[in-house]
């Protein structure tokens, strides 16, 4: 029974704004609940059988009071809805310049990789005071990335990316848990988030395995899978060039325009005929089954690293 506490630590920017709303609600709901219980008790005692009180039936119209207790809760609910919605929108909108970490979940472990290349399992080292954005996917069933101390949670789905962001405000170790039931060892799919001072983090990042950065690994894969044969600078095949694409709008052959984000790049690799870029013929083969989730994230990191490169002149 060690370490019993009633207040969960607040270790992210979101946690403090979350707790404000949470405890406001606790106070408000307690007032209502206690109010109802007090009135119930008072009525129960005052109008108990045998007591000598005025029991002449209530004769006036019940409508005014009923409208009152219909409209008042509704207005209060509306207020809570808006407050919560604002926080939710904020929690769903990663700020620019966030540190990217890739997360691949599988039964029953978390595989994480920093964009600089360092890999971790069931542990995530993070710098204090810097927004961190996780791009997450699953290799099998649905999992859920949950850090109670940060008050954040996001399901991790197979076949697509979900994202989650937060900014740690206190150094220390915080539990990471899988919140969506995922089979036998669901309860053991846990880990630690280790929040460090930025300097320490930088040291930590440079130590350990000297893996190439995700973008570099992705570039290597880009060549070995043959992507560069068509998308490379000197390719003769008529394929879209990938410099300066990521994060920018892409015009599609059916007239739609999408922003080239992780999900778009993922779909373009796995389902190349789904969203074809305007002016190109859908000749690219699907890489479904040939690349693992980890490979994909590296390829995306590479394409992302080209985001600010100047697009070469179009050869049309």
């Amino acid at each position: 029974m060690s370490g019993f506490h009633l207040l969960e630590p607040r270790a992210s920017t979101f946690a403090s704004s979350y707790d404000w709303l949470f405890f406001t609600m606790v106070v408000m709901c307690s007032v209502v609940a206690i109010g109802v219980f007090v009135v119930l008790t008072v009525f129960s005692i005052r109008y108990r059988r045998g007591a000598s009180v005025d029991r002449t039936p209530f004769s006036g119209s019940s409508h005014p009071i009923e409208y009152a207790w219909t409209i008042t809760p509704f207005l209060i609910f509306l207020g809570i809805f808006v407050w919560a919605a604002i926080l939710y929108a904020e929690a769903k909108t990663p700020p620019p310049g966030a540190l990217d970490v890739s997360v691949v979940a599988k039964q029953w472990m978390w595989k994480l990789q920093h964009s600089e290349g360092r890999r971790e399992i069931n542990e995530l080292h993070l710098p204090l005071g810097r927004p961190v954005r996780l791009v997450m996917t699953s290799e099998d069933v649905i999992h859920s990335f949950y850090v109670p101390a940060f008050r954040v949670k996001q399901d991790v789905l197979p076949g697509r990316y979900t994202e989650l962001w937060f900014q740690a405000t206190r150094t220390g170790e915080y539990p990471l848990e899988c919140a969506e039931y995922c089979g036998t060892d669901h309860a053991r799919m846990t880990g630690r988030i280790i929040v460090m001072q930025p300097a320490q983090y930088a040291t930590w990042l440079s130590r350990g395995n000297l893996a190439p950065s995700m973008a570099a690994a992705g570039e290597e894969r880009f060549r070995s899978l043959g992507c560069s044969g068509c998308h490379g600078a000197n390719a003769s095949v008529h394929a879209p060039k990938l410099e300066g694409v990521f994060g920018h709008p892409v015009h599609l052959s059916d007239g739609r325009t999408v922003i080239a984000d992780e999900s778009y790049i993922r779909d373009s690799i796995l389902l190349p005929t789904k969203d074809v870029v305007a002016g190109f013929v859908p000749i690219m083969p699907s890489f479904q089954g040939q690349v693992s989730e980890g490979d994909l994230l590296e390829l995306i990191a590479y394409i992302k690293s080209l985001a600010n490169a100047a697009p070469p002149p179009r050869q049309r």
Partner: protein
Amino acid sequence: MQSRPITPVRTYLAAWAALLLLVPAMIGLAYLPLGGFTALAVYAVGAMEAVLVMRYFMHLKRSSSLTVVFAAAGFFWLAFLFTLSLSDFMTRTRIAPPW
């Protein structure tokens, strides 16, 4: 005992003829280059046909309003299912691009 309504034969035949005419109309619409609206137009014709069948062959025209409400309820609830689940599938984009 109330007498049940007897619909004249020609009403049934007229409804039948109208339905048979709407089928080629539907097929024709499907070939028109209306872009995204083709599916909409085709299903609109489908809805017209369904209303014809329900009004005449299923006698909703002569039924009590309660029956009409029950007949509509299934479709109405299906509309709940469609609108609200599509409110997810059609809007799975970010609020604002963070770049």
